[in-house]
């Protein structure tokens, strides 16, 4: 197809503003799918995506509209996947920015709009859910027009649910979004904006062809990584894979690579013909680094091999997941995992538990620290138990956090951010009612119970998003927890000096409540180095013996003791102290990795 008949676009929106419903409706209106084939969130194939109403993996689908080929690239909307989003946006010339008519602009609307603007995309503003009784389409249209510098009349008003206005959206795509530029004659260049793993055919690359033309059976080169492979098949999604003899400049589709390892083809790389190589790769490839780390341990230590296999399988579809074996005295064998963010961590954990039926114990999440030791050595630390006891300086990752909140909750957000060592950047009224707050915050403060706090202090009205902006020095210390003098490695945390006492106290109190009394006094301590900052004692049991035992009781009594013995064997042994699994669960829960 000639370039001027092609339009490549994506849909960006805050969660629940109707992105996937609009995509569904576009497939229906363009007769790509019949009503019978239709189901909700067609493009979100993972169970978790459908259930949570979010998109985790990007998808691309081709539709026909009035003689044009429209390629819709569905992107994950969340900050954790910003890298994937920006690659997907790079594959487009335009974006639909969808805003809920009742809610107006939210934090992810902003983040996504900025990303689209950065990528030079033509933005088509859309106000959705105009059929809702609580909708205020005029206000929402005014907000979104103001955000992107567009006339409010140019905002397309629709109800993706009823289908009203969806054809207008398609017309706007054709009229307003530029056709792709590119040289069909040049050596091939295709941007890999996502990939998936097919258990029979290996890595499937999702690509946007920029220059040239690609065919099956060609030997291709991934320019950044140097990986080569022979294309087994290529084509487009409709939404099933539809093989084609060519994919040419401007088009979006897939390439079956036959590669057996996703890490050999990374998102952002450029494919070219090995025999006729392009001179320059497309811009945009960078190695994504995990920002949040946690230890994952099987609740039942016998399940370690299952956890290892599950992580291997998950990694096939998620190259950004990082893991390495970790051994904890308290929790046994497990893995230290790195994630793109908290949502990513939660998704991985949920997929492991659901798709692989594993029971997991997850340690308190932490961020990466850059430590300079007294000896002048620089190390990056991903695990509190590796944090050197003697440090010269420590730097921690910071984020730029944007929060949109009704004005009556501004004080609550400011208070929370101040407690979390936030530095105020600026504040702006989006409307009379709604305020945008920007803060710089240490990422480490977000991973600890921040979302729950934000939600409860703003009665759920705040929307929040962030970008990692770099490392800054911080007064950070390692707090260790000890039971009867023995450190419990899995409970070590890195915190700011000012909150060390409070966090140490909370851990100690919780452990005292959760650990059953033993046959001896058990001191529970929190310490920074050799300095004890909190201490409690689990008093020894004074009595644990059934008074009566005569001839008729012997069997019953023996069974009781055997049961008591079994109970002991289920405990985790920390030094001399027996700790039930539930105690670890309860204490780790306190560290609030949930949203």
């Amino acid at each position, binding site marked *: 197809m000639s370039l001027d008949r092609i339009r490549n676009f994506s849909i960006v929106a805050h969660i629940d503003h109707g992105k996937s419903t609009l995509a569904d409706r576009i497939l229906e209106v363009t007769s790509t799918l019949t009503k019978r084939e239709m189901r909700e969130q067609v493009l979100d194939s993972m169970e978790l995506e459908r259930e949570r109403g979010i998109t985790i993996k990007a998808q691309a689908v081709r539709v026909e509209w009035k003689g044009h080929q429209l390629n819709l690239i569905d992107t994950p909307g969340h900050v954790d996947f910003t890298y994937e989003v920006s690659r997907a946006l790079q594959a487009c010339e335009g974006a639909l920015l969808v805003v809920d008519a009742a809610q107006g602009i939210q934090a992810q609307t902003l983040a996504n709009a900025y990303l689209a603007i950065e990528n030079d995309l033509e933005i088509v503003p859309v106000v959705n859910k105009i059929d809702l009784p609580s909708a205020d389409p005029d206000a929402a249209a005014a907000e979104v027009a103001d955000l992107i510098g567009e006339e409010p009349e140019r905002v397309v008003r629709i109800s993706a649910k009823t289908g009203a206005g969806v054809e207008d959206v398609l017309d706007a795509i054709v009229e307003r979004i530029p056709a792709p530029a590119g040289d069909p004659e040049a050596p091939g260049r295709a941007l890999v904006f996502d990939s998936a793993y097919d258990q029979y055919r290996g890595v499937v690359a999702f690509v946007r062809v920029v220059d040239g033309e690609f065919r099956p059976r060609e030997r291709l080169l991934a320019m950044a990584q140097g990986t080569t492979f022979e294309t087994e098949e290529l084509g487009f999604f409709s939404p099933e894979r539809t093989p084609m003899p060519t994919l040419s400049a401007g088009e979006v589709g897939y390439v079956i690579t036959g590669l057996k390892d996703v890490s050999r083809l990374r998102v952002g790389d450029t494919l070219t013909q090995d025999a006729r190589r392009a001179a320059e790769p497309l811009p945009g490839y960078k190695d994504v680094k995990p920002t949040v780390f946690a230890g994952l341990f099987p609740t039942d230590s016998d399940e370690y091999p299952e956890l290892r296999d599950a992580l291997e399988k998950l990694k096939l579809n998620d190259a950004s997941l990082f893991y390495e074996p970790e051994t904890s005295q308290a929790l046994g064998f497990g893995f230290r995992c790195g994630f793109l963010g908290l949502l990513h961590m939660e998704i991985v954990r949920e997929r492991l538990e659901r798709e692989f039926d594993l029971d997991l114990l997850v340690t308190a999440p932490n961020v990466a620290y850059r430590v300079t030791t007294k000896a002048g050595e620089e190390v990056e630390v991903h695990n509190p138990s590796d944090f050197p006891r003697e440090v010269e300086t420590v730097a921690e990752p910071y984020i730029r956090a944007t929060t949109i909140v009704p004005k009556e909750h501004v004080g609550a957000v400011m208070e929370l951010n101040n407690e979390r060592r936030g530095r105020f950047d600026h504040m702006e009224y989006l409307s009379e009612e709604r305020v945008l707050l920007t803060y710089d915050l240490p990422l480490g403060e977000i991973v600890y119970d921040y979302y729950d706090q934000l939600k409860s202090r703003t009665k759920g009205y705040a929307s929040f998003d962030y970008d990692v902006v770099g490392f800054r020095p911080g007064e950070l210390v390692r707090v260790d927890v000890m039971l009867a003098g023995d450190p419990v490695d899995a409970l070590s945390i890195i915190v700011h000096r000012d909150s060390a006492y409070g966090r140490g106290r909370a851990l100690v109190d919780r452990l005292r409540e959760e650990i059953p009394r033993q*046959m001896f006094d058990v001191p529970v301590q929190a310490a920074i180095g050799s300095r004890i900052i909190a201490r409690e004692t689990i008093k020894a049991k004074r009595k644990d013996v059934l008074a009566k035992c005569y001839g008729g009781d012997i069997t019953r009594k*023996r069974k009781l003791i055997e049961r008591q013995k079994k109970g002991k064997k289920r405990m985790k042994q920390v030094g001399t102290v027996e700790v039930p699994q539930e105690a670890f669960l309860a204490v780790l829960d306190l560290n609030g990795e949930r949203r």
Partner: protein
Amino acid sequence: MSAVGGQVRHLYVHLPFCAHRCGYCDFVTLVGRHGEHGAYVDAVMRELRLEGGILAPRLETIFLGGGTPTFTEAGALEGLLASLPDADEVTVEANPETVTPSLARLLSRNRVNRVSLGAQSFNTSLLAVLERRCRPEDVRRAVHDLRDAGFDNISLDLLYGIPGQSTAELEADVESALALAPEHVSYYELEAKPGTRFTHAHGEELARQADAMEGYFERVVEALVGAGYRWYETANFCLPGREARHNLGYWLGRDYLGVGIGAVSTLGLERRRNAPKLAGYVAALARGLAPPREIETLDEETKRRERLMLGLRLDRPLPLAAVGSAVEPAALSRVERLGLAERRGDGLVLSDRGRFLGDAVTAELMA
């Protein structure tokens, strides 16, 4: 059976009848049933004749437990006592309110030489909580009646941890018991077993006061030991030479024969438990058959574990050779290090603190 034939020296006889069933009781008991006492006792004597071959020619101990053995109709009780073989120690359990001068004489002339009185408490309101029918003065009178009939070996059963019991009330109970100068005291913690009427009524209260009552056992031990009693078993105290020899048989892992409904026997590697139903028991024995019963077969390792569990309740060292592989060596050094147990010669004995934590220590030691 041949392995133990003619060797068993301890006999237990169960007499289940009671005037009333107390809320906390989980023994096999039957309320009233006056017309059936005679038939039951006949059946017991039949069972004894049926199983008697395994008893040694001279028994060491006989124990008549209940129920309330002294609630059994006097004629039936006397007939039973008269038919029993000779033994060095013959104990009968009695509720204080059932003891009269004539009952005391009946017991005495039938070779009973030890009486275990179910006093439980000397506090009227706590006795009411327990649904006991006796009054504090019944206990004193019973002891005097027994002394008058010549009994020089009397044991008092007492309970601590009764719902609502204060420390002062506990101390008063101990004092009242000591004032009667019993040769032996069994002091039990009230066990609210799941499913009993008592637990239903008082379970929450007991859970609430659990912390406050944690030290009661220590107080009991301290007071009785201070008064010259030997804490020879977890819940039992005696003046010198006055251990309950029958119960000591259980704790030393000896074989014993139990007859009557619900009675348990341990004979070598076999443990039998007679079914608790009166009618089935009487009917089977009337036809000359063994009563309905469950049989549990023990293996050597289980026997060693039981030996460990029971032996550690005593103040005399448990020979380690007798428990062998039932003890985990690493755990042994752990509990020694914690000061919960010590080796004495070839045996193992718990420290005082170890005895208060006896179940936990046993579970720790058990391989």
